[in-house]
């Protein structure tokens, strides 16, 4: 196979890659000009559908299909929200795109707005990205100056405003309806669906929420065609008519105990081992892998013997994880205790639960309390069972909560228990030799970690 040439990262690292001048010099906004000459919004939706592009925000939902749920007889306005909340631990590729090549994201945003007939697009940007804010706002200003944004884009009757809306340090704002509530000025409590945003979203109008990287992909699909996109990645399973495949280039992030943490671009389906060894230069300090989180903390753990898992939308599922998630791999070396991983994960989700659903609010906090107690050397084998019960009972999949945050909390617990049970049992026995077999109710420890 010929060496894959980066597409999404093609400009990153070049001088002034964030400026309009540099972007136009490499063909930037050509796709937009061509589209506005003679294409209709429906043409664009057809193109994106034909590419089988699946959203890069975590759930892998087919983008063209999502757009086609918008009502076609609605008087408007329609809104596009670009999700730049990027708060899933292990994930940072949106930051790189926004800092180094914001015009690529903007061109995708403008094209997507045209396709969805949106007249306003909001970029919901997490607060902790000040450099992204500066670069993105400067790029937006350049676009207004050049006629790519504003009234009558490039002299056509398509008009579009793009505004940046800053978040305030809450993970749940990345959930699409939490994002919408937050944008409306309220607490970011995710909404019960249906109605889905396409029907009733921001300001109760039809709304599409898409990830930053999804926007960048749209630009390249329009520019190079859906066949090009489908020539990259893992093909759909011919025996499963509902499998949309995993097509296109993907930004893989890798962090944790590796020699070269960073963001790397490869065709979807990159084996986890290649990401760790070839791209990230292997495990630090000459150590071995104990576990890898394949796609952001929510996705759970791959064990060391699962590193041949292809990182496409289906691979991690087959390996007993939640999914590809954000493709943010986190590598843990052989010396890192799984109880520490569990503690960190449970603390994160307990801190970020919005508190709206009882199973999530209570479950994440009980899980944290238990893991805290185990870590402190007062655990019992029974606690592992109780943890497993929490893992199995919270989330959209069992149907007890409104949003996917609870599923994200559950998978690290479930996978740690399924794949590292021996280590956890040993830990409990060694740290609590007198009490590990107790089955009496245990006294809760005072929470140490509330904000």
């Amino acid at each position, binding site marked *: 196979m010929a060496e894959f040439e980066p597409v999404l990262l093609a400009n990153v690292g070049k001088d002034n890659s964030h400026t309009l001048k540099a972007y136009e010099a490499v063909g930037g906004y050509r796709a937009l000009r061509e589209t506005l000459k003679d294409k209709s919004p429906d043409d664009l939706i057809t193109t994106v559908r034909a590419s089988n592009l699946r959203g890069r925000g975590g759930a892998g939902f087919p983008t063209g299909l999502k757009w086609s749920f918008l009502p076609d007889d609605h008087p408007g306005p329609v809104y596009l929200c670009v999700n730049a909340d990027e708060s899933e631990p292990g994930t*940072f590729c949106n930051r790189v795109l926004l800092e180094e090549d914001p015009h690529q994201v903007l061109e995708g945003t403008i094209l997507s707005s045209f396709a969805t007939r949106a007249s306003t697009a909001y970029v919901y940007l997490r607060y902790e990205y000040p450099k992204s804010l500066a670069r993105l706002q400067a790029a937006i200003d350049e676009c207004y100056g050049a006629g790519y944004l504003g009234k009558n884009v490039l002299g056509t009757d398509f008009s579009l405003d793009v505004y940046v809306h800053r978040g305030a340090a809450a993970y749940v704002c990345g959930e699409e309806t939490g994002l919408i509530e937050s944008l409306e000025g309220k607490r970011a409590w995710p909404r019960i669906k249906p109605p889905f945003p396409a029907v009733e979203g921001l300001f109760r109008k039809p709304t599409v929420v898409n990830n930053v990287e999804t926007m960048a992909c749209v630009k390249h699909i329009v520019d190079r065609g859906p066949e090009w996109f489908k020539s990259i990645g893992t093909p759909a399973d011919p025996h499963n008519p509902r499998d949309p495949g995993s097509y296109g280039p993907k930004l893989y992030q890798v*962090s944790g105990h590796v020699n070269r943490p960073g963001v790397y671009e490869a065709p979807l389906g990159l084996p986890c081992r290649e990401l760790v060894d070839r791209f990230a230069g292997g495990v630090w300090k000459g150590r071995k892998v104990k576990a890898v989180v394949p796609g952001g903390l929510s996705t759970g753990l791959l064990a060391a013997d699962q590193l041949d898992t292809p990182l496409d939308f289906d691979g991690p599922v087959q390996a007993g994880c939640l999914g590809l998630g954000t493709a943010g791999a986190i590598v843990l070396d052989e010396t890192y205790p799984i109880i520490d991983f569990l503690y960190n994960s449970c603390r994160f989700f307990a801190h970020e639960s919005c508190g709206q659903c009882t199973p999530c609010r209570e479950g994440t906090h009980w899980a944290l309390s238990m893991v805290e107690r185990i870590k402190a050397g007062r655990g019992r084998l029974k606690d592992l069972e109780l943890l497993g019960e929490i893992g199995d009972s919270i989330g959209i999949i069992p149907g007890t909560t409104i949003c996917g945050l609870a599923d994200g909390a559950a998978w690290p617990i479930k996978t740690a228990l399924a794949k590292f049970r021996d280590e956890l049992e040993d830990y409990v026995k060694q740290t609590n030799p007198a009490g590990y077999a107790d089955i009496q109710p245990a006294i809760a420890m005072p929470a140490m970690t509330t904000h």
Partner: protein
Amino acid sequence: MVANQDWMSTTEPILSDDLLDAIRVYFPKYPTRRAVVLPALHTVQERLGYVPAQAVVEIAELLELHPSEVQDTLSFYGFFKQDKPLGKVRIWVCRSISCSARGGEDLLEYLCEKLGIRPGETTEDGLFSLEFAECLGACDFAPAMLAGSELIGDLTREKIDAFVDRVRGDT
């Protein structure tokens, strides 16, 4: 809103005309006033260092909301301070997995000891406010901290010392 007027009659307005204008800039960007709540809270905290109760009342008045609606949104985000202004630099030290696995939490503890405060607090000289952060989206630079708008990655005790000295030296 009679209750507010009572309150306001005993309290000087805290948001200057200038600040109110800075919030009004956001009006044309949204179809509702309520959507301006977050931009308004950010604007006030950036200028005053915090969002005291009186500012909440005045934001509500400007946005034609009940103060409780603004307060409700504010209190959801652990981000806005109400009791006293933040220090000159607000430091966020990441404690999430990729940073923690590379020593981030020890560095947070080091910074606590160095500054003599716990997360959520501000030094008495008003220079530093310290916070723990969940993933800053900078795991490629783990362990990472965000100080004001400056990202400091591959963090070490030496880098922390140098940073603290720099801020102290600036004043």
